[in-house]
């Protein structure tokens, strides 16, 4: 791996790699730009379509193309391709199972100072409610590239949530990302579980706790749907689970973990850490996270209380 890049760019670079040899692969963009997209647009111009800032039409046109054998990836800022297009995705991908890969850019507070119009803090809740939709949520650029390739091979209706900030590298190139989750750190009693960029907060928390002699586990759940049944065994090794998300708690990531625990009658407790409301708060993502009590420092204090 050379210079680290964002998950968005890493994912698109990999699309470029398979789009070069498979001319059915297309990117349908709602006027969404990215450094990695420039190369795609120039070199594979016949496979690139800008439908303008019209996300519903982006989903519709991509679904029409996919029903005729094309392999489109749609790309838009996350709230506009999830909340706004939810019903079209429900019908086209959930009900009719048309294999469009819907990419949302900007998980949680990724578009920090753009404000709450551009934050996406409920996509997990609403998108996981759609049957037949596979959901990926990578946590670094290596995961993003590998998962990009997986979505190509799978050729299924898929939603991919990508952060637009550059995140530290977690994985090495040998990771296959087939299992759906990874126990990044093993611990005693307590396990932190997160997805996407919040995995990095979980790692920070685990490191802080380690300094005080407390060894906690960390799980990266990078495939939110379908959840790997293998995760049950891992969770049941612990006594207390802490879910960490940059999402509204109602129906979100922690709710998903709660369902997993309940449905499998696991004898573990669950503490959900996440958001309760929309916020007008600026000064960068870290500051917003601090304001919302989902920064590593505050989470560490919460976990210490357990």
């Amino acid at each position, binding site marked *: 791996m050379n210079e680290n890049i964002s998950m968005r760019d890493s994912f698109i670079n990999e699309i470029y790699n398979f789009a070069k040899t498979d001319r059915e692969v297309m990117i349908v963009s709602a006027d969404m730009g990215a450094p990695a997209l420039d190369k795609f647009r120039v070199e594979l111009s016949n496979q690139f379509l800008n439908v303008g800032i019209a996300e519903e*039409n982006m989903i*519709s*046109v991509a679904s029409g193309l996919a*029903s*005729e054998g094309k392999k489109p990836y749609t790309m838009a800022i996350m709230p506009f391709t999830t909340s706004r297009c939810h019903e079209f995705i429900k019908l086209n991908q959930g009900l009719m199972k048309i294999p469009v890969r819907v990419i949302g850019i900007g998980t949680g507070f990724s578009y920090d100072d753009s404000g709450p119009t551009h934050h996406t803090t409920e996509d997990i809740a609403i998108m996981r409610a759609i049957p037949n939709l596979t959901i990926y949520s990578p946590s670094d650029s290596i995961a993003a590239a590998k998962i990009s390739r997986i979505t190509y091979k799978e050729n299924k209706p898929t939603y991919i949530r990508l952060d637009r900030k550059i995140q530290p590298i977690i994985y090495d190139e040998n990771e296959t990302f087939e299992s759906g989750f990874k126990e990044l750190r093993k611990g005693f009693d307590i396990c932190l579980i997160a997805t996407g960029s919040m995995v990095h907060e979980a790692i920070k928390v685990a490191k802080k706790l380690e300094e005080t002699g407390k060894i906690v586990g960390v799980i990266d759940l990078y495939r939110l749907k379908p959840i790997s049944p293998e995760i049950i065994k891992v969770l049941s090794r612990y006594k207390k689970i802490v879910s960490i998300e940059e999402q509204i708690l109602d129906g979100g990531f922690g709710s998903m973990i709660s369902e997993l625990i309940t449905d499998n009658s696991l004898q573990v407790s669950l503490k959900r850490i996440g958001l309760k409301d929309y916020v007008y708060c600026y000064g960068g993502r870290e500051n917003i996270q601090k304001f919302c009590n989902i920064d590593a420092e505050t989470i560490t204090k919460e976990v210490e209380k357990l």
Partner: protein
Amino acid sequence: MDEKRIKELQKRANEIRKEVLEMCILGKTGHVTSSFSCSEILTTLYFGDVLRYNSQMPRWQDRDRFILSKGQASPILYVVLANAGFFPKSWMTSFCSTNAKFGVHLQCDIPGVEFTTGSLGHGLGLGAGVALAAKLNQKNYHTFVLLGDAELYEGSNWEAAMFAGHQRLNNLIAIVDRNGLGVLQPTEDFLKLEPLERKFEAFGWEVRRINGHSVKEILGALENFRGHKRDKPLMIIADTVKGKGIEFIENVALWHGVAPVKQEDIDRSRRELENYSLEEEYE
């Protein structure tokens, strides 16, 4: 097409209406009036040598794609498809029953149906994608989309219209079933749709306006659509009457989305439809 054939198609459109009526009476539901306004349109497309299809190979690659965006008019498409041999007519008798193959809105797992529709504003964008795929895949099929007029309030139609115009999708033909009624009121009373021709022209479409109950005019609007030199998508605004053929439900908003269930309404519907089909008004 000769006059005799056109007259036969006019008659057939009424026979189709009768089957729709009986299907909806049996099912005790179904959008009868929305189906009746587009009977001549569907009859002409499927039985007037317009659409290319093979009922024994519903997914035949070179078929023309027909997308019924106004999915609430599913009864008439189901009747037409059954008549065209896509599936047994016996399926029609179980409409909306416990062992039904299909219900009120259109369902894509029925042979001959391209997409599940009923969510308005859904079909034109899909059609634009399907038409663009034909260009990219160098296929000669045409894509037809039948829209309800009151679904034009959905903004997604205008996103799709702008896209199709810009992409010069001359293999895309949309037809608006302009029956003039929404659920509650005439469209022009609650939110003006007109001037529709100028709107679609401004969005890059070639527009024709016709009497949507005249097979002759429908065929005229579609004349030589395969061999044309048009470089734009084609929009046909077909002026129609909601509930056409049963006078007492024609243009009556309260009859939206329902079938006659009271015996007196059933009898009257059958009688009036029979009388209408004897009028031969297009001779």
